[in-house]
């Protein structure tokens, strides 16, 4: 009965935007000043191209930017054309080929990144996305396609992870659905804010805002989680419910909600802001889990294991919603999605079973260290954006290149160190469990024999 209800709810959640947006002819996620289609002809004299739009088959003539050579344009391949609205009507800013050629190195990279991203996701509930999108972009995938393909891989992965952790008795479905529903509203607010900033301060302003939010949230929240985990690790104590959560649970403001697995009874007025913030952050920095999981731990009062497992349910609902939005614009490269899934479906289950062997604070340690290293990655981008806004002198090209490198490698380090901590903690836990089992068996044989 309960399962049936849940299934119906999910189905409605997924089908509603699909139907409404399919009828309206587009979602609101992907950028609007972007055309998708095929370049059928190039006119070198006029420095223009003939472009056939995807779907409608409408033919338009577009002007190439001065910096682009007519002979560099590739014909009859699906491309994404972004328009330069400031330069005039129909002027191209950039052309990127939608589907890159798959080489062996690229395939292996996607498999490995997928596997590690999945491991992290299964263990702390989120993660992977923050490194997968930049990794794909550095392989030559256009930004919008990278985001869309990543989104489409996120929800099946989260589904498998959530199922596993539900079986281990860690995921609170009710809490997850309540959080997801409010997070979807949060995403809409987040998008509105983004658009406002984009319109008033331009691209660089928007980037600076995103980086600023990213860094402040990650450093503050990540720092606190690390401090908390350090305290627990030092005291060898079991995690206790935070004082803030206890105080909030005492507020008897209807409607009160009871979450069985999380063992929490709390007013809906507390869970709603946490969900909204998760959604807003997801719309801003693409990793809502970085606020969702700490929110569920310190504000709602769930344990780290339950919070990280429940985050996977939120990720599933939001990922499915987002995938439909991006899919409607036809930006998902299914090859990328499925190659990442090949690795991440193994990783996510490994991460999920890993949580059964470690202490609660281990999840906090992995989460905090990932958040703090990712903050470095984003921080390295700030000088560039400041220069774009003329707030600091223009950077030298060497400095820019070095900062880009730092930013990318910090992401790789975040992923690598998280994978290392998880693997070590899991192996230790497994060996310990094995020794305990053997000792138990020996004791039985001795006492009974």
């Amino acid at each position, binding site marked *: 009965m309960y399962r049936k209800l849940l299934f119906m709810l999910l189905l409605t959640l997924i089908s509603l935007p699909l139907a409404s947006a399919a009828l309206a002819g587009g979602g609101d996620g992907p950028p609007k000043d972007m055309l998708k289609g095929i370049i059928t002809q190039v006119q070198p004299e006029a420095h223009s191209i003939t472009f056939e739009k995807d779907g409608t088959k409408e033919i338009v003539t577009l002007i190439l930017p001065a910096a682009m050579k007519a002979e560099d344009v590739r014909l009859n391949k699906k491309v994404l054309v972004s328009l330069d609205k400031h330069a005039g009507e129909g002027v191209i800013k950039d052309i990127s080929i939608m589907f890159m050629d*798959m080489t062996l190195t690229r395939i292996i990279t996607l498999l490995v990144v997928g596997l590690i991203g999945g491991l992290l996701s299964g263990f702390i509930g989120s993660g992977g996305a923050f490194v997968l999108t930049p990794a794909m972009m550095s392989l030559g995938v256009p930004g919008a396609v990278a985001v869309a393909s990543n989104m*489409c891989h996120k929800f099946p992965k989260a589904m498998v992870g959530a199922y596993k952790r539900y079986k*281990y008795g860690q995921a609170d479905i009710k809490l997850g659905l309540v959080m997801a529903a409010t997070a979807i509203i949060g995403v809409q607010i987040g998008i509105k804010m983004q658009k406002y900033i984009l319109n008033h301060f331009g691209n660089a302003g928007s980037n600076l805002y995103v980086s600023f939010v990213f860094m402040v949230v990650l450093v503050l929240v990540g720092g606190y989680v690390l401090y908390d985990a350090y305290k627990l690790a030092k005291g060898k104590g079991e995690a206790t419910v935070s004082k803030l959560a206890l105080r909030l649970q005492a507020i008897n403001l209807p409607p009160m909600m009871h979450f069985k697995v999380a063992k929490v009874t709390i007013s809906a007025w507390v869970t709603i802001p946490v969900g909204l913030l998760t959604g807003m952050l997801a719309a801003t920095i693409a990793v809502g889990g970085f606020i969702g999981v700490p929110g569920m731990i310190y504000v709602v009062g769930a344990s780290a294991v339950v919070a990280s497992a429940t985050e996977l349910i939120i990720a599933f609902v939001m990922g499915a919603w987002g995938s439909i939005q991006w899919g409607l614009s036809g930006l998902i*490269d*299914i090859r990328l999605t*499925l190659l990442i899934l090949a690795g991440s479906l193994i990783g996510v*289950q490994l991460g999920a079973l890993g949580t059964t062997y470690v202490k609660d604070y281990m999840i906090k340690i992995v989460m905090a260290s990932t958040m703090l290293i990712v903050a470095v990655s984003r921080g390295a981008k700030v000088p560039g954006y400041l220069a774009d806004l003329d707030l600091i002198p223009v950077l030298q090209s060497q400095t820019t290149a070095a900062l880009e490198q730092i930013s990318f490698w910090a992401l790789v380090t975040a992923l690598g160190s998280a994978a290392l901590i998880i693997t070590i903690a899991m192996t230790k836990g497994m060996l310990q469990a094995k020794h305990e089992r053997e000792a138990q068996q020996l004791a039985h*044989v001795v006492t009974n024999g």
Partner: protein
Amino acid sequence: MNVSNFDKNMSAVAFAEAGEFETARGMLHNETAQRGNASQPARGAAPLRKKKPYLPAIGFGLVSISLYVILFSNEQLVTNTFTMGGWYTVLPVGGAFLFSFIHGAFASNLLNVLGLEAKK
């Protein structure tokens, strides 16, 4: 005569060594059943080694690989149709679902075969 668990286990081992696996398993199993609670292994009984799911792992693995091969040998057609937008969204989203069930089942069985299981 009072036969201890240890003796029973030892005789089961003797049968197993002689190739009589079924008898050995039966002896161990009977004992568990006699205790009336099959879900909890009897104290002192040698644990029954769970059979590893080799067959499902190989089966799902083969189906998964075939799907990947089909996808990549029709790369052009698939990428073009899957990005048409509108109702065609069903294709990438449904495709991701399908792969996650099949490849997910493969991954789950693979981990079991490798002996990686959740702590009980």
